[in-house]
């Protein structure tokens, strides 16, 4: 399906990078264009009104191409691609789909594509996708056709670790946090909720779990990979040997070549705890990272703890955490931030952005010290990404 937006766009200066924030929601997608100071934002949208957009990504390799993972309540999942910043979209001719099961066996079906990751800078047009239920896919033609990784999707051990739909998150088990080492396109990571963290050193031909040090819910066996529930993993762009993770059971850091995660979330205030969904990392400082805690007590309300929202930042690799909530509601804000909905740009000072389950887009131009509402009354926000157009 190809879609056209009716209104022509104003011409823009071609050379200077311009900030954009991509917002994927339960009812469509929006592109927010920032001015040079990132002070005012122009909304472009909705794109795909009524479609469930799980993720929208700008290709940093060209600063122009967008991919969007879409489905609707009734139609099957697909991926759309735009090479003109969303003026027109073209559907993938072969969206992510599992292999057809042999006769007599029950096969899996992709419910939705959840995560999109552009591949290594030296692999133009290569993308990775993670799906719900858990599946890993790769495209070598810019997102037009997608091939499954049988080493994950059909491997008996991985299938066991993925569990069943009943073991997954409330809106389906997911493969997410696909990360490519910028020094080596064959070095990959991904995570599954549930099903743990995994690493490949040979471009996905073989994989191994990477869960040492991670805790699991009380009463479950941490040696069983199926019980591990990473929510979001980020690699430090400044130091690809450092990974941060927001897990179902705390905040962690991993410094390679170590294979043991360290729970740095224990330094969070006890009243807030270290449960949450998203994680963001400073693009130039490997000691700086952000989380957005949520209430993970009792029945897991998945709201801001006590209705008081705030990001927390560490400037020392997780030894200490500082609350950053200036500009946010001081009380009675019962929303939270999903695992793909906290992002940073690469400006100086960097901008930090998050989208809420209540449809608000927030931004900070000073690394989280002060927050400002960029947009409100959007549908539930699933993902926020920041980038620079070229």
């Amino acid at each position: 399906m190809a879609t056209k937006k009716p209104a022509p766009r104003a011409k823009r200066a071609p050379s200077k990078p311009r900030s954009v924030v991509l917002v994927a929601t339960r009812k469509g997608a929006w592109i927010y264009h920032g001015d040079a100071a990132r002070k005012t934002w122009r909304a472009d949208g909705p794109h795909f009104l009524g479609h469930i957009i799980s993720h929208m990504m700008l290709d940093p390799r060209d600063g122009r191409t967008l991919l969007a993972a879409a489905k609707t309540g009734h139609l099957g999942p697909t991926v759309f691609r735009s090479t003109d910043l969303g003026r027109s979209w073209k559907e993938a001719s072969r969206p992510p789909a599992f292999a057809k099961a042999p006769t007599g066996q029950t096969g899996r079906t992709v419910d939705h594509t959840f995560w999109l990751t552009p591949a290594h800078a030296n692999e133009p047009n290569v993308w990775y996708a993670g799906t719900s239920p858990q599946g890993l896919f790769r495209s070598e033609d810019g997102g037009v056709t997608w091939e499954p990784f049988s080493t994950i999707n059909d491997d008996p051990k991985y299938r066991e670790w993925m569990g069943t739909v009943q073991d997954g998150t409330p809106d389906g088990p997911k493969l997410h946090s696909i990360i490519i080492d910028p020094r080596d396109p064959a070095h990959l990571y991904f995570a599954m909720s549930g099903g743990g963290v995994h690493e490949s050193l040979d471009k996905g031909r073989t994989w191994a779990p990477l869960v040492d040090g991670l805790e699991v819910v009380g009463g479950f066996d941490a040696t069983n990979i199926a019980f591990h529930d990473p929510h979001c993993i980020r690699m430090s762009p400044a130091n690809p040997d450092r990974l941060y993770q927001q897990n179902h059971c705390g905040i962690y850091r991993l410094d390679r070549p170590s294979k043991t995660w360290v729970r740095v979330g224990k330094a969070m205030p006890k009243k807030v705890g270290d449960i949450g969904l998203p994680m963001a990392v400073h693009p130039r400082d490997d000691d700086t990272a952000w989380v957005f805690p949520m209430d993970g007590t009792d029945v897991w309300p998945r709201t801001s703890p006590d209705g008081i929202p705030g990001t927390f930042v560490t400037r020392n690799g997780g030894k200490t955490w500082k609350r950053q909530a200036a500009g946010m509601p001081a009380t009675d804000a019962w929303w939270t931030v999903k695992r793909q909905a906290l992002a940073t740009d690469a400006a100086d000072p960097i901008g930090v952005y998050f989208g809420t389950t209540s449809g608000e887009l927030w931004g900070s131009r000073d690394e989280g010290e002060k927050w400002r509402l960029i947009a409100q009354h959007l549908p539930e926000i699933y993902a926020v990404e920041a980038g620079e157009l070229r």
Partner: protein
Amino acid sequence: MKVLIPTPLRSYTKKKREVEAAGATLSALLADLDRQYPGIRFRMVDEQDQVRRHMRVFLNGEQVFDLARPLKPTDEIAIVQALSGG
């Protein structure tokens, strides 16, 4: 034969609510539809060849799930979005 297209799929058929497609079976008919309107089949039939949960196919008013169901040129097919979701 005549195929009625529901509103969520009309972005594929250039807004047409009724199109012509051919096939000796329902599977062949859907393949012909996908040839004419690329991508439409996967939105309504999954990779295991099952009609998706919220989609329905009617053959001359009778609901059918079997993609191997034989068709005649005079048959009429209606693709319908299920009345689910409130």
